[in-house]
C-alpha cells in the first residue's frame, strides 16, 4: 500500500476507482516475469542409477523475449522445455508462468518438437486447426484463423495437402502455423530447424524473426548450433552438462533482422562456442575411449604424396 501512496499523481488518479486487487496486478506487471524457473531439478532413473538431468536451474524470461539455449547433447535442454510445457514435472523447484505455478500442459505454452509431430492423417489446414478444435472454436472461425496463420507462413496453396506431400521446410511452416494458431503466450522450439538444409534454414530464420516481431511472442529456442543461437536470440544461455544448469549467459546486441553471416554475430558465436566447447569435450571425454584428447597441437595434415622438392 505504501508503494501506491508514493506513486505519481497520474497513477494515483488512474487507480481512483479501481478495486484493490486490480491495483496490485497493475503494479505487479513489471515485477513478475513472464516465465520463471526457481531451483528446478529433475532426475531420471536409468539402469545404471540416478541421472541428474537438471540441477538447481534458475531462469527468468521477460514477456516478448527471444531466448536461445545451447548445450551439448544430453544436457537437459529438452527437459527444460518439457517442464515449461507441463509435459514433465520437476522433482524439485517451481516453474511458473505469470507468477502462477505450472501444473500441466496448456494452450498457453506450445512446443514445436524437433520431429514436428504433425498428424499424418490430417491435411495441412486441418493440422493447423487441431488445437482450435480441441478448444471448441466454431468451424468458421477455426478456418479463418487457420488461413490467417497459413498465410503468415506463406503456405495457403498447399493447405489441402497431406503431410507426407510436403517438403521439410513446408512441414516446418505447418508446425509453426499450428502452434501460432493456438495463440500461446510462449513458443517452445526444440531444435526445430536441425533437419533442414542450410538454405531453407536461412529463409526460416528470417521469417521466424519477422513473425516474432509482429506477434510479440515469447520464444524459447533450443539448438545445438551456436551461430543459429546468436542469430536468433536476445539472450543465449549456455548449458553445462551433468548436472544440467546454466553455465553462462550472453546478451546479443545486434540489429534485426539478423543473418547468420553478420560479422558481429560471428564474433558472438565465437565466444559462445569457446564456452560450449568445454562442455562438449566433457561429454566426449565420458563417451569416448580414455586415450581421446583434444587441444593437442597437431602437425599440419597433408596427404603423403608431397615431395617438397626432394626429387629435384
Amino acid at each position, binding site marked *: 500500500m505504501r508503494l501506491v501512496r508514493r506513486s505519481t499523481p497520474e497513477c494515483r488518479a488512474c487507480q481512483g476507482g479501481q478495486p484493490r486487487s486490480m491495483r496490485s496486478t497493475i503494479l505487479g506487471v513489471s515485477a513478475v516475469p513472464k516465465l520463471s524457473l526457481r531451483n528446478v531439478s529433475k532426475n531420471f532413473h536409468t539402469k545404471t542409477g540416478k541421472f541428474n538431468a537438471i540441477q538447481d536451474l534458475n531462469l527468468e524470461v521477460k514477456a516478448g523475449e527471444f531466448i536461445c539455449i545451447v548445450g551439448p547433447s544430453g544436457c537437459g535442454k529438452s527437459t527444460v522445455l518439457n517442464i515449461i510445457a507441463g509435459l514433465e514435472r520437476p522433482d524439485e523447484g517451481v516453474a511458473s508462468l505469470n507468477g502462477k505455478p505450472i501444473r500441466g*500442459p496448456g494452450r498457453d*505454452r506450445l512446443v514445436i518438437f524437433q*520431429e514436428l*509431430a504433425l*498428424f*499424418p492423417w490430417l491435411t495441412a489446414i486441418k493440422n493447423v486447426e*487441431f488445437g482450435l478444435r480441441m478448444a471448441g472454436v466454431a468451424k468458421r472461425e477455426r478456418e479463418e484463423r487457420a488461413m490467417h496463420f497459413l498465410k503468415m507462413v506463406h503456405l495457403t496453396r498447399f493447405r489441402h495437402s*497431406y503431410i*507426407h506431400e510436403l517438403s521439410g521446410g513446408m512441414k516446418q511452416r505447418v508446425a509453426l502455423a499450428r502452434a501460432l494458431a493456438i495463440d500461446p503466450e510462449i513458443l517452445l522450439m526444440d531444435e526445430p530447424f536441425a533437419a533442414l538444409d542450410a538454405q531453407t534454414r536461412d529463409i526460416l530464420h528470417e521469417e521466424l524473426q519477422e513473425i516474432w516481431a509482429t506477434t510479440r511472442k515469447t520464444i524459447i529456442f533450443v539448438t545445438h548450433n551456436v551461430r543459429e543461437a546468436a542469430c536468433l536470440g536476445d539472450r543465449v544461455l549456455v548449458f553445462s552438462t551433468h548436472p544440467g544448469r546454466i553455465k553462462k549467459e550472453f546478451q546479443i546486441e545486434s540489429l534485426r533482422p539478423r543473418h547468420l553471416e553478420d560479422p558481429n554475430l560471428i564474433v558472438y558465436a565465437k565466444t559462445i562456442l569457446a564456452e560450449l566447447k568445454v562442455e562438449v569435450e566433457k561429454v566426449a571425454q565420458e563417451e569416448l575411449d580414455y586415450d581421446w584428447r583434444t587441444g593437442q597441437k597437431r602437425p599440419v595434415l597433408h596427404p603423403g604424396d608431397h615431395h617438397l622438392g626432394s626429387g629435384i
Partner: protein
Amino acid sequence: MIITWEVASELSLWPSFLFPSPVEVLQTLVQGFSDKTFVLGIAASLRRILIGYFISVFAGVLLGLAIGRNRFLKETVGSLILGLQTLPSVCWLPLALLWFGLNDSAMVFVVIMGAMLSITIATETGIRNVPPLLLRAGRNMGAGGVQLLLEVAIPAALPSIISGMKQGWSFAWRSLMAGELLYGSVGLGNLLMVGRELNEMSQVLAVMLIIVLIGLCVDHLVFAILEGKMRRRWGLETG
C-alpha cells in the same frame, strides 16, 4: 481356365456327376437363383455374418482400446484373449448350441468368436504403437482424456485397426461356413451340404463359387477402398 475346364469335362475323364462342366454349373446357378433357394441361402448367411461382424468390430475395438490403455487389463484379459485366439472358432459351436440352441444366435456367436479376437488384438497393438510424440503433441495442444483418444490415438492406430478388421472379416466368413456346414438351417454352408447329400457336384461348385465371389467383393469393394484411401493419406505408398 474355363475353356480347359470345359474341355476336360467334355473328354469325360471322370464321371460327370463328380466333374460337371462349367455350363452345368452355370445352369445350376441360374436355376438356384430363379427358384430362390440360393437367394435365401445367401440372405440368411449374409444376415448372420453382418450382425456378427458388426458386433465384433464394435466390441473388438472397444476391448482393444481398453486393453491397450490399461496395463492391468492387458495382463489379465489380454493374455486370455491371446490364448483364446489359438482356438479355432468352430470349437465354440458346441458351446453355442448348448447356450442358444440350434438357431441364428448360435451362428452369430461363432462368427463373433472368430472375428472379435483378431480385431481386439490388432486394435490393442495399434494403440500401443502410437508414437508417444504424437500423444505429447496432442496433450500440448489441449487434448486430454477422451479427446486425446478419439482425435489422436485412434486415428494414429487406424492402419492397424483396419488391417485387423480385414483379417476379422475373413475369420468371420470362415467361421460361419464351418458352423453352417456342421449344423445349419438355411444358409450357404447348408446348401453345400445338401449338394453333397444329393450327390450334386454342380450345386457344390456353384455354392463354392458364390462364397468366393462374396469374399472377393467385400475384400475389393470395402477393405481395398478403405485401405487404399488411408494409405494414400499417410503416404505409405505412392500413386
